């Protein structure tokens, strides 16, 4: 087989995989635009015959989506801020010092990442209740998500810091900067991309977080969009177009952010630092 035909075959395989993977997303958009009879047509139609755009406005109004999305943003922003502020320092220290204790620390951090949210929620719930944190349910969820996302952030950002040569910091110190000054002026700008990417990934995770929010936040007016979507669905639900419209409104902004920042996520920065 020649190189070009193998390349083509690979491309076809890749496209097929992408199509399978992205089909649910496509189905969400298409269903959101379908009318009642279209939805239940058999065989199903892959393209809405008469797209009904009014569904979006109707769902936004009737489900009070503005409030849900606002809560999602508050929770995600809070969690990302907490993780970024605490995790950056932690990752830096773990990147710069090598010892048995650091290795043990990293192992424990990775262990935390392994535990699923649905397992952790019960002890967290009990603990939070006893500390009275359930009085501030959104803050409690922020804490829980931050704890859950921290290992992921630390491990990613640590790798970023390790890619920044120590000599640059030393040069900055000899140039007259303090240790902290060298960190802020030299290391942080060079690690910016890695930190940004990790923060975005965590923001997206937190934006769609469900288990903690569902369990901890009882007050409907404080619930995020993920819980709102869940309460939309019941055993006898048949308004799939409305649910899909809700999902579309929920997911599209995140998708847009991801597409816009995707180039940043890929690009590197430290080239030219050393010989």
């Amino acid at each position, binding site marked *: 087989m020649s190189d070009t035909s193998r390349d083509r075959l690979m491309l076809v395989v890749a496209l097929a995989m992408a199509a399978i993977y992205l089909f649910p997303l496509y189905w969400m958009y298409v269903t959101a635009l379908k009318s009642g009879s279209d939805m239940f047509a058999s065989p199903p139609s892959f393209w809405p015959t008469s797209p009904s755009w009014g569904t979006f406005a109707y769902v936004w109004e009737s489900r009070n989506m503005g409030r849900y999305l606002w809560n999602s943003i508050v929770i995600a922003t809070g969690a990302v801020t907490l993780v970024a502020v605490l995790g950056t320092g932690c990752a830096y220290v773990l990147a710069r010092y090598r010892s048995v204790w650091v290795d043990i620390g990293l192992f424990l951090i990775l262990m935390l990442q392994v535990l699923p949210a649905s397992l952790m929620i019960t002890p967290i719930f009990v603990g939070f209740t006893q500390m009275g944190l359930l009085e501030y349910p959104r803050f409690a969820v922020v804490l829980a998500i931050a704890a859950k996302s921290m290992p992921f952030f630390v491990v990613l950002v640590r790798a970023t810091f390790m890619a920044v*040569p120590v*000599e*640059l910091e*030393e*040069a*900055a*110190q*000899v*140039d*007259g*900067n*303090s*240790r902290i*000054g060298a960190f802020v002026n*030299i290391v942080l*700008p*060079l690690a910016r991309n890695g930190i940004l990417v990790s923060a975005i990934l965590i923001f997206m995770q937190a934006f769609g977080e469900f288990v903690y929010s569902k369990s901890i936040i009882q007050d409907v007016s404080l619930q995020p969009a993920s819980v709102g979507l869940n309460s939309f669905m019941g055993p006898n639900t048949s308004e799939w177009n409305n649910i899909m419209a809700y999902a579309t409104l929920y997911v599209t902004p995140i998708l847009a952010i991801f597409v816009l920042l995707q180039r940043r996520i890929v690009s590197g*920065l*430290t*080239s*030219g*630092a*050393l*010989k």
Partner: protein
Amino acid sequence: MTNQIELSGVNKYYGAYHALKNIDLAIPKGSFVALVGPSGCGKSTLLRSLAGLETISSGDLLIAGERMNGVPPRRRDLAMVFQSYALYPHMTVEENLTYSLKIKGVKKAERKKAADDVAAVTGLKDLLSRYPRELSGGQRQRVAMSRAIIRNPKAFLFDEPLSNLDAALRVHMRKEIRTLHDRLGATSVYVTHDQVEAMTMADHVVVMRQGIVEQHGAPLDLYDRPINRFVAGFIGSPAMNFIDAQSSADGRFLLLDLQSPQVLPAPASLPPDQRVVVGIRPEHLRPAAGGEEGLEFDVAAVESTGSASYVTAATSPEIVVVLNERSAIRRGERVRFAVDTRQIHLFDATTGQRLDVP
């Protein structure tokens, strides 16, 4: 002359590892000192201790008369050129040069002027707005140098700054660094593993091994009177020939342990039957004239670079001779080489210390 840097009884431990052992060293103001030794000898640790990037475990470190033991790097007022150059990749050349001034709070216009002045000296004028990644290796090296020069520091520290350059550029930069040093009247400490760099650039060479200073002095003193076998072998290229030997019963001759016994006149009368190591530099052996005494051996190989010929003898240990002219000597010939007795070095067979010939 006052000392710009003074070390007395400096020790450095990494846990149980003793990296610097009781170092005493005085570096006069305006001098160019090279720290040289094989890798792991502690020369870089010593330099980093001067810079404040490592803290010394005991002893005293004085810079311009002030005790600097626990002082952080930023208050030592030293400039350092790193082996990797360590240019800030997110800053332009100009920002790299003026970063230290910016921290000091120098006004923007003055910073610009300082950068222009230094760039004019080091030939970076057209590159000020470029980023490090857009420069060649030689240009980056210049930026690293300029970044040090702009600060007008108490001393310059160089950590193998030329090892990433190709051979031709290295020879060129060697001269350039020395010229800059002389023009600025600076004090420089230069770490290198390359003894040729140390010999050619420095006023004063410090030879280190395993955390101790083996010998220090003017380059030619080290070449002429190495204090022990290690220094003798380290300084000079190709390396000195070492031959085990024994003094004769009357102490006037040296009986060399080559495959066939050979005799050389001793530089001075020695105790009878003493075991010694004879050191002869390759460039001090010359073809013997007429009936001159000397070492006679079969030639195993002749390599010629055009300007010099390297003759390797088929002996054990192998003896190398450098002749600074075209030579008619061919492989397989038996040749006699003479050596001036004053150019024979003698070392103790067990301790390796120089045996001083009165």
